[in-house]
């Protein structure tokens, strides 16, 4: 890493904390301003006024908003994300339990979308304006336009219920072995459908951008020169054309990490996948503010880091770019 790299990293790290703080502040105010009282949500029906007052005091909800915010910020600095109203357990512990499932889902979807998206895009570009290209373009447009929950329900209907190939709910077989290699295969089997649904739009996006870039490159002077020099078509595609398209693909992928996490919330609900997306939905419904804030924090950090990595990878792939 050269000097400009480290200078850049230090500057970005300096931006990191204020960015996260701003996101958390906005999140905190939004939740507080939203209608709905966590204590009413928690205590349910038929309590008495004293009960609700006790609960409010227990969670510090009887204090003025700036005091609540200051306390939250103070705890956060010491690494304390607070305690869930509903579960009475540390938020960090609850999020740590769910995070692996979401990381598995989103990381595998990201990987699939990069590999398949690039492959499909290159294929379409090499069949430019022929049947293969038209099929790819039409399909990716349709998939890109479809809402994630619709894709999920369709996948369940066709690939799980009709064919019985895939399970429809959860991460493991309730009657299955939980300790051996078979358990790993079981998780992979359960992962396949939600991962495909989550990856579908990303595959479409990556395929579109790859196709467009490749069509452009394949018609360019340097590719024509390479072909004239007798370079094999494979090398033309990978070294000469794709190499120049990849930076924009990486940019798209990096930008879509936030989108992927948002999609995971829907996919986790449709497939009963036990990740932080479902945790967030449940916490929102019950106004479990510490959990909502904890998930906000994790998602914000992830997106900011993803953007940073994208920048670094961009430099790696395109030597003309300098950070600074």
């Amino acid at each position, binding site marked *: 890493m050269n000097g400009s790299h480290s200078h850049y990293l230090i500057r970005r790290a300096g931006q990191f904390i204020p960015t996260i703080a701003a996101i958390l502040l906005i999140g905190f105010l939004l939740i507080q301003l939203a209608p709905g*009282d966590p204590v009413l949500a928690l205590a349910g029906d038929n309590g008495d006024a004293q009960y609700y007052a006790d609960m409010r005091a227990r969670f510090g909800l009887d204090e003025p908003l700036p005091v609540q915010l200051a306390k939250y910020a103070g705890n956060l600095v010491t690494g304390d994300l607070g305690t869930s109203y509903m579960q009475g357990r540390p938020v960090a512990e609850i999020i740590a339990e769910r995070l692996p499932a979401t990381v598995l889902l989103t990381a595998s979807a990201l990987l699939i979308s990069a590999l398949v998206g690039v492959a499909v895009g290159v294929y379409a570009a090499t069949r430019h304006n022929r049947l293969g290209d038209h099929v790819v373009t039409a399909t990716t447009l349709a998939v890109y336009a479809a809402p994630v929950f619709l894709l999920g329900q369709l996948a369940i209907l066709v690939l799980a219920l009709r064919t019985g190939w895939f399970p429809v709910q959860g991460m493991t077989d309730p009657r299955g072995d939980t300790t051996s290699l078979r358990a790993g295969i079981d998780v992979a089997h359960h992962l396949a459908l939600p991962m495909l649904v989550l990856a579908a739009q990303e595959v479409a996006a990556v395929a579109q951008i790859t196709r467009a870039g490749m069509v452009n490159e394949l018609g360019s002077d340097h590719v024509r020169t390479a072909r004239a020099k007798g370079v094999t078509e494979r090398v033309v595609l990978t070294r000469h054309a794709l190499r120049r398209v990849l930076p924009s693909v990486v940019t798209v992928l990096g930008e879509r990490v936030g989108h992927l996490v948002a999609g995971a919330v829907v996919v986790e609900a449709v497939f*009963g996948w036990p990740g932080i997306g479902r945790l967030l939905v449940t916490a929102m419904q019950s106004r479990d503010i510490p959990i909502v804030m904890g998930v906000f924090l994790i998602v914000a950090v992830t997106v900011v880091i993803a953007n940073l990595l994208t920048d670094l990878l961009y430099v790696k792939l395109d030597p003309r770019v300098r950070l600074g």
Partner: protein
Amino acid sequence: MIARRLAVIIGAAALMLAACADGADEQAAPPADDQPVRGGILVAAIDSDPGHFNPAITTSGATHTGSELIYNGLVELDDNLEPQPELAESWDVENDGALYRFHLRDGVKWHDGQPFSSADIKFTFDELLPQHSRTKASVLATLQSIDTPNEQTVEFRFKEPYAPLLLQLNVTEAPILPRHIYQGTDPRTNPANLKPVGTGPFTLKSYTPDSQIELAANENYFKPDQPYLDGVVMRIIPERGNQMVALESGEVDWVFGVPGPDLSRLRDSGRYDFLTTGINPGGSNCIMTVSFNLDRPMFGDVRVRRAIGQALDRQQFLERVQFGQGRVAEAPISSGIPFAHAEGLQGMPTFDRAAAAQLLDEAGWRQDGDGTRVAGNVAGVPDGTALAFDFLVYPTFTSYGDLLRAQLAEVGIEVRLRQLEPPVFADTVFSNRDFDTNIISYCNGADPEIGVKRMYVSSSIGPVPFSNAAGYRNPDVDRLFDESRITVKGDARTPIYRQIQEQLVRDLPYLWIVETDSVRAFSRNCSGFSPSGHFAAAAFCRQ
């Protein structure tokens, strides 16, 4: 020759007999449907993650559904909501119902092997149940003390006779937790909330948050032979539609509720059995009830409220919204509480559109052509005000709102639907009282003291969810509810509740639309279920 023929005949006869005998054996071989078999795992779908397994500190339906198989109450309520022995083997009621003495079952052990005793009961009521909002507001509000004269006896002393106690001691209202685990700790953060120790038919084997709860049979359960299953796995599947998919694909064996539109398809498939019940994790004997905000001048005249009741065809609500799961409400108190439900009550508004229109005319709300009615000489309402009001609904109850709006439009009333998320709904209706009308599923429970009184007494107007939404005040009704609480004999309470209901249909602070049932569906291979929290305690599945 003859001897040989005889031998052949005898041989053939013997073979036929043997064949017949085999046939008879074959017919007898499969166990009868109601004959329990041991072993197997039941997979049940549940709506939401329990968060923890301490049902004594919360009324959350999710926590209760996830944990009630692990614990017991002093009594359990049977399918008719009658108290039956559970941790208590028997009981005496003395001092006109101000003293209840329970004799506890012998030899009961906690899942960790420690003996259960009366000290656990006292500890649970003194230290844990004050965080259970329903029990704190009812039993604990009148309880004077709990005494434990010996390890097998516990006495509840009340400030005055307290009638409904026996219906409030089941695992849902008063689950008993171990003193030796919880004493001296904060019950909200005790690690045992995630590694529960109960006395119930199942023990917790593993818990994967938002995914599944794995329960294993308690080999030392105090009820002979139970449980039959080796275990129960509860899959957390938030959407009912997804639960149907999981049921039909064979991933789960049991669901707690079937959405109306799916019911006929499941029935036609012949692969499932059903259990129809008024008991739900969120409460039992629920009535879909329209509340009028009586603070609004528009609803000040009972003729307007009655006319709205007459304009509603409640049979259509039952058929189109509930898909037949329930019945039209015939009295303010649910028919699931037979001693309190007023049979053959006169004066409930029945569907009669012409009478409704006439009554509205008389009340000063006149219609010009097909338009919305407007006020003319109505007390507290400026002339020319349209008969238009908002109607608050939970997202799950919007079809009630749609049908109500359509039916009231027929008599010139304009209804604006406002759909609100549950916490916002509770805040808007009970804290801010910012509504005209709404619909709430009021669950009456096993006794009117639990879930009926809160709707009508003036002391429960205020920021407590699902209390007196109408803002109804009637000193006679307040007095009658007080009287019924201290009247311990069930049959002596019946006329009091009848009087209350007669008054309520005269005043109509609410409209009682339909009593709702829920339909549990389960694989044909399984049976022995009950509608209570211990739904799988006596269940078994043929593999």
